[in-house]
């Protein structure tokens, strides 16, 4: 009886914490939509038609839904990558590079492995191998930054940015060179198509949505479970919240920093791998431009919570996907979407504005002006 009561109140607590955590992002989105609408009016557009177009284009039909899911897939993986790092007290700006590394290696395994081996592989070996290699390479790429942080104190923000340059330019070099698709008609910097055995099967005939999307949702749940239910997650969160206390508690802080960075890189690598094996069947220079940076926005909007990340990824995907329809209906430029995204983030980051507009008292940590033990 009592335990039932307790679990009941616990569910309530969880629900309350979700609604509290989600309130500011939701109001930020609402505010951005209103401000965006005003801007549309100023430039001479019709905000109602624009937003209708946006919604129709992203959710209006099975095809639209499928495309939104396609867009959301890399956003979820990369958003989770950044969110996980945030939980561990690390700012991974390098999802962009880690994603490219993952994509390159998945593509390489996808098209070159059968050639190297001289025989073709069954799908249940080739496909997972392509995905796992891409994921691991993303992890190693980010793990290097973790090692630098743990042993030299080199800041991960600087180092992930530097690693991005290395990754993106090396990718460009490879895609223009040894990995370039040699077919006579090709002039684009891209790899050859990967073997059929490295491609994800379709879920529905004629729709582009692929199993990678399902995997993304599954991984989001896994990350939530990892962070909140496992001992490793406890260690990651403790290091993120208070590294001094983590050291005191006997947690190996260096190891945890490296591991968090590597896990984050693995998730970003997965974003790249899944784009290659599930959607494009090759890696093409520039296809992933911006995912890694949008991921930071998604993690922030989702308050680094895996469920929040999934929802934020959907929002960003819907905006990207619906933009074309919006442009078609209203002749408003697609750039408006970038502006809307920027507005949302601005309101999430500067949540004091949102609190002020909606008269929300900030709970919990108020601005501390005096600190002391006395009453």
């Amino acid at each position, binding site marked *: 009886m009592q335990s039932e009561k307790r679990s009941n109140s*616990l569910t309530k*607590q969880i629900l309350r914490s979700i609604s509290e955590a989600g309130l500011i992002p939701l109001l930020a989105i609402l505010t951005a939509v209103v401000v965006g609408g005003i801007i549309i009016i100023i430039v001479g557009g019709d905000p109602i038609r624009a937003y209708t177009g946006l919604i129709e284009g992203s959710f209006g039909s099975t095809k639209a839904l499928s495309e939104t899911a396609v867009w959301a897939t890399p956003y979820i993986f990369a958003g989770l990558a950044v969110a996980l790092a945030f939980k561990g007290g690390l700012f991974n700006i390098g999802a962009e590079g880690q994603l490219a590394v993952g994509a390159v290696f998945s593509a390489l395994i996808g098209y070159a492995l059968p050639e190297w081996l001289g025989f073709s592989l069954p799908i249940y070996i080739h496909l997972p191998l392509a995905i796992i290699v891409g994921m691991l390479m993303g992890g190693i790429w980010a793990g290097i930054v973790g090692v630098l942080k743990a042993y030299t104190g080199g800041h991960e923000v600087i180092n992930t940015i530097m690693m991005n340059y290395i990754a993106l330019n090396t990718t460009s070099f490879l895609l223009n060179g040894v990995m370039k698709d040699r077919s006579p008609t090709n002039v684009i910097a891209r790899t050859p198509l990967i073997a059929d055995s490295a491609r994800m099967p379709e879920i529905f005939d004629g729709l582009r949505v692929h199993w990678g999307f399902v995997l993304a949702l599954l991984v989001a749940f896994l990350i939530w479970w990892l962070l909140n*239910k*496992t*001992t*490793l*997650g*406890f*260690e990651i969160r*403790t290091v993120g*919240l*208070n590294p*001094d*206390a*983590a*050291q*005191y*508690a*006997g*947690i*190996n802080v260096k190891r945890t920093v490296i591991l968090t960075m590597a896990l984050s890189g693995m998730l970003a690598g997965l974003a790249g791998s899944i784009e290659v094996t599930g959607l494009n069947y090759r890696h093409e220079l520039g296809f992933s431009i911006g995912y890694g940076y949008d991921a930071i926005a998604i993690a922030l909007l989702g308050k680094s919570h895996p469920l929040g990340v999934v929802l934020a990824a959907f929002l960003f995907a819907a905006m990207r996907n619906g933009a074309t329809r919006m442009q078609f209906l209203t002749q408003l430029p697609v750039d408006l979407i970038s502006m809307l995204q920027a507005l949302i983030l601005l309101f999430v980051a500067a949540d004091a504005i949102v609190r002020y507009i909606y008269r929300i008292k900030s709970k919990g940590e108020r601005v501390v*002006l*005096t*600190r*002391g*033990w*006395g*009453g």
Partner: protein
Amino acid sequence: MTETFMLSNVETNIVLEAKRITKQFPGVLANDNVNFDLRKGEIHALLGENGAGKSTLMNLIFGLHLPDQGEVIVNGKTAMIHSPNDSIALGIGMVHQHFMLIPVFTVAENVMLGDETVKRGALDRNTVAAKINEISIQYSLNVDPHAMVGTLPVGLQQRVEIVKTLYRNAEIVILDEPTAVLTPQEAEDLFRIMRDLTGRGVSIIFITHKLKEVLAIADRITVMRAGRVINTVLPSETDSAQLANMMVGRQVILTVNKKDREPEADVLKVEGVTVRDQRDLETVHHVSFSVRGGEILGIAGVQGNGQTELSEALTGLRHPTGGKVFISGHDVTGKSPRVMTETGLAHIPEDRQRHGLVLSYTVADNMALCDYYHPPFSQRGVMQPKALDENARKLIKAFDVRTPSPFVNAGKLSGGNQQKVIVARELSRNVKLVIANQPTRGLDVGSIEYIHSEIIKMRDRGVAVLLVSAELDEIMALSDRIAVMYRGQIVAIVETKKTTREQLGLWMAGAHVESV
């Protein structure tokens, strides 16, 4: 006849009065119909436990909060205090427990901060420095206006805070727990300064929880408990026991009851340990001592003589650069905190918020902070919330932690209860050695009493206890033996019974040891 005259004369000299102040915070009535007054040139002590409402009252007077009801009258006029700027304009200055100073600025720069004197577009440091010198000489504060604040000892930094208030012409100075960060000598200096100030007409509100200080320095004492004023008394008409009783609301044992006990074998053995601090300066030089089971060894010393680095080296938070450390015969020199805990160490860290707790974790999580990784808290890599919950409920009950539930964030608890969470966690484990660094710093009488009794319980159970404390009274009350640290060395180790406060004070100040 004379007395009535005196009284009425004093009555007219009230410089500050808080009338029927009520302040409600979510879930707490922090101030409940509080009346308080301050006379010109007096030191009025405000005494109370954590959460008694002392700081709330002062924050209301200083303009950091607004009262729900009641009014503040300054110099006979109802004052509208909405922000610290208003209170400063009214001549009220506040010295916070945690100083509001910028370490890389000079004293003059810190003092003028927020009220800068400018000459032709540039900061006029010389005029400010001259005024600081004037204040410094007038109240014999001995503050150099050109010194970098970060390089000053804590006692001097506090004087800079006092100068700040005087520079702004404060006639009412609020001191919030001013002695919490001071050594006994520095506290004596502060009291002299307080007397100087009142002698020149400044009125002082002295917030504290230390009974001895109140009796030594205050002209009047107001005791608060649970948001209410219990009584206002004169020091000559009261004593520690009565004050403690008013503060806590029940009888308090002020002396520690400790039975004699024969110590057992060595548990902690420290041989020639040398430690460097983060600036790579050697702050502990070849220190050797041992602590036996069933014994409390106190390390006395003025703060900053290597105690922090020594205890960090003994608990795995810092690598010693030389020497050996043994726990129950196991060599644990330079081992990680994890190895130390598994060898049987319980560590009550010096800074509870930095090392001891994750403030945004629940009480339950914090209570398993050092044990989270093995059964019953973790099974095959998965945390067991039920075990965490049960453990927390058990400890909350056993150690009398005042928390609404195990799911409250540790950061929401009062300092005393935060410390109890740490003490409960550390002392409930099966340990052989306790290293407690400043275990009662900044705590109230009730919590201190409780934590002392828990430490003695451990000793009586045969556990070795190393107690590091800047409070000589605490060291003397608890320890069986006392080691005095001075400039990174242990200058004396004596049995508590065979020494005196004065002798220890001399050693702490660096006097040579003739015989031990």
